[in-house]
């Protein structure tokens, strides 16, 4: 098979590698914050994927600009797909709409009172506070929450800026 085609197939299947690793890690690390495990699986997936690429594709690649470009290409594509996998997991873990869909699928049908009893606004906030503390983004002392890590904080600012560029900020409160 052509090396380009082999490379494409390995990269397209790389999220599956991350998924399998994640399934193993999630069972081994039950007490760790779920997002941290998903993140580690996305990083660790690079090992088998790049080992496969090295053995199947790059071992016949002469040391040249073309080979270096291909390696950079693989790095960008794998990183993007692994990051997307992490986001997919994060959606399953934190998205309100996904939780609502899953609750209704499990129950068959719900009234608004049943749904808001299952999933209250207070839950939305307290769950997130616990999560942010577990991910070391917030510190809790004596009932007060303060910023600890800056990763998500700067992500919040970037999203705010992007909303302004898209013209979303002037339109909403949603």
């Amino acid at each position, binding site marked *: 098979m052509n090396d*380009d085609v082999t490379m494409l197939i390995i990269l397209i299947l790389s999220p599956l590698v991350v998924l399998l690793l994640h399934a193993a890690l999630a069972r081994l690390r039950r007490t760790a914050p779920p997002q941290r495990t998903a993140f580690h699986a996305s990083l660790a997936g690079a090992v088998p994927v790049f080992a496969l690429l090295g053995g199947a594709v*790059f071992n016949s690649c002469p040391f040249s600009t073309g*080979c270096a470009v291909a390696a950079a290409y693989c790095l960008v594509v794998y990183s993007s797909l692994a990051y997307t996998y992490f986001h997919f997991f994060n959606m399953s873990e934190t998205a309100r709409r996904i939780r609502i869909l899953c609750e209704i699928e499990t129950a068959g049908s719900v*009234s608004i009172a049943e749904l808001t009893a299952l999933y209250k606004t207070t839950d939305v906030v307290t769950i997130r506070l616990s999560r942010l503390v577990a991910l070391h983004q917030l510190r809790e002392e004596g009932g007060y929450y303060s910023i600890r890590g800056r990763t998500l904080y700067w992500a*919040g600012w970037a999203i705010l800026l992007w909303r302004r560029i898209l013209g*979303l900020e002037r339109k909403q409160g949603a």
Partner: protein
Amino acid sequence: MTGLSMPITVILYGIITFSVCMVIHVIIWRIGTPWASSAVLLLIFWVIPAVMLLIIAFAAGGARDLVGLTSVQVLEVLLLHFSLSCVYVAGYPAVRAVSPSLDILLMISASEEKRMRAEDMLQRYADKRLVTARIDDLLTYRLLEKRDGRYTLTLPARFIARIFLLYRRFLGLPMGEG
């Protein structure tokens, strides 16, 4: 079998394709956020580029000659564009409906003492309809139906919910807390 050798133009065209889609997205959104914004986003970033690049890869030999790429290299451009698009599309829900997690961080940072109690944060969210606003979204996207005061899932929504439930079961995890 010849060794892999990728021209830099594959990466350049992939980035250019993604950038053009991003510019189109920004222009359309600034004119007016589309009603089914997520569907339009997928059209801009996935459907239209995929159709165009697949036509170039397999049918439009003249176009391939113009850009100096083989069919497989055009597919490489498509995969690069697709992977970059996935990153943006995956993050878009947090842009569209401000994530409460990020909002909490910004709220604490903006407070005078740089620290807040949970009760103070809850007060701010009391009128924000954190759950009911998302129910309205699902109704708008025709993922929920309301009949006789009860909500049920439409067929596409059942498919989505089952995918996520199956996914969580595969990982050995309970349903996410939301």
